[in-house]
């Protein structure tokens, strides 16, 4: 198969590598949203997240010659951002996942009832704020997987490429995080909504 077919990633990467004026600025503009969403969701601290975003793009600029087009440029840059945020959390000894968050638990579906009324919930700004707070309370990896899937509209294989986790693990994180948020929303875990 001809891997030299023209594609936007290759054109942009070639332009950056030969130092074309404005090329790196365009690369940053194209992917700063992705990096921000990954890093900010991981670390939650705006100042730290800005610094880590800068570090990400400096690393991208430094290592771009190593990019081999084996995955989309989006996944490659997302992987750099994810690993930098991960290292930051590890340095600060912040747990990435709750202990035994995925293993050995009974199905939480049983905890959820069918009598919850959301008639007023959709128009309630306070409800949205509480949901955002509930998302923030999730472990960093689950927050990030949810953000990539829902906000960045990344596919499960793309998220797997970014995070280095297996697709099955991504699906389990998505399932459990959304179920947990539903439980919080419906007030069955002691979180008033």
């Amino acid at each position, binding site marked *: 198969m001809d891997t030299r077919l023209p594609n936007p990633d290759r054109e942009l990467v070639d332009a950056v590598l030969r*130092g074309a004026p*404005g090329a*790196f*600025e*365009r690369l*940053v*503009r194209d992917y*700063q*949203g992705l990096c*921000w*969403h990954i890093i*900010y*969701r991981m670390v939650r601290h*705006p100042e730290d*997240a*800005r610094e880590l*975003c*800068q570090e990400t*793009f*400096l690393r991208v*600029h430094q290592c771009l010659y190593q990019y081999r087009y084996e995955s989309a440029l989006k996944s490659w840059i997302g992987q750099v951002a994810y690993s930098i945020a991960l290292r930051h959390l590890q340095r600060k000894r912040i747990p990435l996942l709750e202990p035994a968050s*995925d*293993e050995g638990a009974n*199905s939480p*579906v049983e905890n*959820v009832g*069918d*009598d*919850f*009324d*959301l008639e007023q*919930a*959709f128009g309630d700004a306070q*409800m*949205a704020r509480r*949901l*955002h707070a509930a*998302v923030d309370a999730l472990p960093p990896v689950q927050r990030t997987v*949810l*953000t990539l899937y*829902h*906000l960045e*509209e990344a596919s*499960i294989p793309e998220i797997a490429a970014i995070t280095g986790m*297996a*697709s*099955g*693990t991504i*699906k*389990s994180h*998505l*399932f*459990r995080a*959304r*179920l947990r*948020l*539903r439980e919080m*929303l*419906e007030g069955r875990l002691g979180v008033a909504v």
Partner: protein
Amino acid sequence: MNHEPPFSTPVDESEWAAQERALADERAGAASPAGDPRARSYRLLAHVLAQPPDAQLPPDFARRMAQRVQPPARAADNRLETWLVGLLAMAGLVSAAIYGNAWLPSLDQGATGALLAKPWLWALVACLGFSRLSRHWLHHDQVR
């Protein structure tokens, strides 16, 4: 044929289907489901999760990053060029101060020549030039 990757742990498939259906409906802008609390909960979740965070990167983030990674050779070229222009201006000023008495009077022909022969005019030009150059240097320091 099912190409979906399997879950790493056992899950309730109907619950997963409800989560995915709510996400698809939210993206398609479908009407809010009536009479199904689970579907409505997941729909609200899908709506909230698609919202970007309040905090954002500064609007000029990309431009600043591009400046930070400017190749050192080009930055050094710019600095060298600026210093050479400054050096040339200083050399001109020193020459005018040392040899000006000899050749300035020779310009004193006609109205323009008379003006050019005035030492204060050259001093004024030198001051303006130095002011312009120092502004350029200061700007460079701020950008870096």
